[in-house]
């Protein structure tokens, strides 16, 4: 009897592992948390998109809950999510843009064509700030709390459902 139980141990182990790995198959590797979650917004120094003489740094992101959207004129999904970002700005949420790997002209052209929900746009032509934010494809959206700590990260296109079901509740939570 004891030996039988012992022999059963192996198939049980196998089944357990198989189930564990099977669950892993259903995970989407692109849906992973940003490494910057719960960390401070990285230090940076850059100029404004609209004014190359005006310098901005990380102190821009303290004092109020802010949504930081990383976008570029070359990025089609950024254009598609603009209506949602304008809606978020209409909700009274402070929006800051990071113009990622773009030229000033292209960036400004984008804003005049698709609207400008941003209080300020940080000009990041070399993608330095983007790199420190761990951005590996635009658009990406970060929620930064009043202390300048990153609290939520949305990778990719923001759909109207994302606004209602994820972003607005997160903003409320950290306000």
């Amino acid at each position, binding site marked *: 009897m004891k030996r039988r139980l*012992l022999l059963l141990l192996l198939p049980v182990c196998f089944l357990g592992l198989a189930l564990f790995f099977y669950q892993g198959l259903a995970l989407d*590797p*692109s849906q992973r948390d940003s*490494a*910057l979650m719960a960390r401070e917004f990285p230090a940076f120094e850059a100029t404004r998109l609209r004014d190359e003489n005006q310098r901005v740094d990380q102190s821009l992101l303290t004092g109020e809950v802010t949504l930081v959207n990383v976008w570029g004129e070359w990025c089609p999904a950024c254009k598609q999510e603009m209506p949602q970002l304008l809606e978020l700005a209409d909700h009274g949420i402070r929006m800051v843009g990071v113009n990622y*790997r773009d030229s000033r002209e292209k960036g400004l052209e984008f804003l005049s064509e698709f609207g400008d929900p941003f209080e300020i746009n940080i000009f990041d032509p070399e993608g330095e700030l983007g*790199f420190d934010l*761990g951005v*590996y*494809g635009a658009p990406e959206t970060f929620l930064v709390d009043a202390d300048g700590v990153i609290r939520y990260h949305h990778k990719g296109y923001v759909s109207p459902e994302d606004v209602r079901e994820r972003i607005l509740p997160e903003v409320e939570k950290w306000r």
Partner: protein
Amino acid sequence: MALIRLILALTMLVMASGAVAAGIELREFDDPVKEKRYHDLTSSMRCPLCENQAIDDSDAPISADMRERVYRLIEDGQSDTEIINHMVQRFGEYILYNPRLENRTYLLWGLPFALVLLGVVIVVLMIRARRHASAKALSAEERQRIDALINRKGSS
């Protein structure tokens, strides 16, 4: 048909040259050790965007940025560990092909050893059980039966 073949051949040629162009920026190192470190580091980091390519093998813009950063940090005199930490801080553990040993990876690293150990324990237990069974003395009744069988064969 010939036209299709020609188009196919051309497409493949273009794709092949694209693959060759990936990740071959010419980097000048004054020190062969640095060059070796550069290749080891860039081949052990996973591209965050393309999932199954190392950054030294990937065409994605982010991979080029990461190679550039690795190069700069090596030239700045940072150690391999510092460079790896620098990258993990930004892009997460995900980019390491060899996950580091820490709380959440104990299971990953430990499981193979635990399974081998479990197998050894099971085999040892089975051998011992079998040895025990064969070493057990025969009962008087069994001995009698054996004797009877042997004798019958011997007398005939």
